């Protein structure tokens, strides 16, 4: 069931050189996409500490998008490869927390792919609407009896 009333909150970690510029392009090209994503600019997708993702989910985000340059195109040579390796470890951690791994997405969006950025945000928002709110358990009682 898709709850159309529910508007998911998405935190996006966008690398400054590719994905943030791509998002900028989506804006300057007047592309339409849901306003659910709030972007945080980082210098490189390799800067994204997995704890940032956990912190975002803990603080009420329903999904997190990490976006960087395409493999081989990293402004810092190989920062996105570091992100690529950290991501599966983060997913394992999410499994242990009982969080659906579809809530954290890693995407490669180049500076010219404004259209792709808009598409990714639209798709992700739709997917999170299907998954519903995250409801992070803040107490042990909540954790033992999930809603």
């Amino acid at each position, binding site marked *: 069931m898709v709850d159309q009333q529910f508007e998911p909150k998405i935190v996006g970690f966008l690398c400054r*050189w590719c994905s943030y510029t791509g998002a900028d392009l989506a804006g300057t090209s007047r592309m339409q996409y849901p306003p659910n994503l709030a972007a945080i600019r980082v210098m490189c997708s390799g800067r994204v500490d997995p704890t*940032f993702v956990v912190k975002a989910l803990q603080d009420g985000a329903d999904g997190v998008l990490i976006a960087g340059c395409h493999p081989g*195109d990293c402004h810092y*040579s190989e920062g996105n490869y570091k992100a690529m390796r950290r991501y599966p470890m983060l997913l394992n951690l999410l499994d242990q927390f009982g969080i659906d791994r579809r809530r954290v997405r890693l995407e490669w969006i180049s500076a010219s792919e404004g259209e792709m950025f808009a598409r990714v945000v639209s798709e992700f928002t739709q997917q999170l609407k299907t998954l519903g709110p995250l409801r992070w358990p803040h107490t042990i009682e909540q954790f033992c009896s999930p809603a």
Partner: protein
Amino acid sequence: MIQLTIDGKKVSVEPGQTVLDAAREGNIPIPTLCSHESLIPYGACRLCIVEVRHRNKTRLLASCTLPAAEGMEVTTNSEKVIRTRRMLAELLLARCPESKAIRNIAAQLGVEKTRFGKPHLKDNSAIVGTDGCILCGMCVRVCNDILKIGALGFEGRGASRRVVTPFEKPSEVCLSCGACSFVCPTGAIEHHRIRLHKPEPIPAEFEYGMVNRKPINIPFPQAVPRVPVIDPDTCMNFRTGGCKICEDNCGVHAIDHAQQEKIEQVEVGAIIVATGFELFDSRKLGRYGYGKLDNVLHALEFERMSHASGPTGGKILTKNGQPPKAVAILHCIGSRDENTNEYCSRVCCMYSLKFAHLVKEKTNAEVYNLYIDMRAFGKGYEEFYKRILGEGVHFIRGKCAEVTSAARTPEEKGKLIVVAEDTLLGMTRRLPVDMVILSAGLIPGKDSDKLGRILGISCSQGGFFLEKHPKLAPVDAINDGIFFAGACQGPKDIPDAVAQGAAAAAGALSLIDKGKVVLEPITAEIDEKRCAGCQLCVANCPYGAIEYNKEKKISIVTEELCKGCGTCVAGCPSGAARQKNFEDVQILAEIEGILTAS
């Protein structure tokens, strides 16, 4: 310098030069058949004999093999010399009575007929086509000594001596360079009898293969610097290690075959990328017949043809050498087409109008422009469009479906038929024309993605380089210090490219003028007190900016090398690594801010 006297004239030459060289230096004519500046003197034809006085005696000697000596007295036109030369000419004429070159040189010496009969020679028609070989060996020497190939040699002695290839069969080692027939003084060598492989013409790249070029050539008339270049793929020196005939011919010794390509590293503070465009390959759209049908040209081929320095000298001609009576210009080949490139190449409408004008002016042919939309967007462009309309050029709104040579009616026979839908008339039209010009679009250079990767700049969707901002920074790359000029950033015409080039130069100059570069203050640092010395950050750093200090047992960031990506910070297990302006606490606060605000 050596001083000698030839026919009473004082001549000075360098040591080691021959009497023949000295005579040429003094503009004294000596007839010769077998001398060439690249070949070592051989003295085969003997026609260059001169009379040399030594004390009281005189001797007849071949001047081409006689080294010049101090105080030598030489006569080139004494009665004795002329008499002997005439005898030699008669003997040569007796051997080769059919040869035009021999008859000419004999006539110059006043010999019309020979008193001697033709000697009985061994048949050599397999290699030397007509009888004309005087056994001077220039072909053999040029092939062996100069070109280092050795496809030809002498065989036999006396009357049976002749020039042959091994086993009298076309030679496998022959590289079809044609030097033997080029140097042969009598034109006796018929090259097709020697070679096994046909010589392949080298198409001139700048003229799109409409004419051929030599291995050494000036690439195009406006080349800067305007000097010849040697193509290593076809130059005989690069293939055999020999030849170098051009070195001997160059008066100022400017040719150096030992030159190598060099990769030079230059340290710069700004880079202007001006790598330009390539023309869309019309072969990809087979329905227009490019590469299959004659007289289907792409835009740059026509541009060369209509140019005064081009292969036809500016004449617009079809393959059979006649000016066309009807010409079709097809717009939007490889642009505004979802199957190839979606973007508009901007320049094609206007150059097509120019082509229409040139064809009209030079041939008065009927010109058909097949367009989707006319985009005459610049200053004075609409006015030019109107002028061309007034010149009687036909404009048909509709994209060409195909170009074919299959005629349906007698008047279509022998013509190219352009099939197109005329969307204004609402009907299909078949236009019989003599020439089709494809107004091909502009595409990015084939190595532009590679260059983009080297410079760390990305490409926009058409593959052209991406500017920092489409409106506010259309000349800058995303990376500081890199600027774009011209079509590498997107299709543009000459005025736009000039404007962008000037802007790029100004941008680069403003950086150079400052003399220093401002770095972003976002480098990483490591808190000495927190660092446990695990060295994970050392492995994480792509720039080698972090070093492990063995004495302090901690890692230390070299700030000048750090580019500020923050990968080390994300990987630090103890929180000792920090990135200025992108600190963990700052980002965490951002997350909190975002999520509490909404």
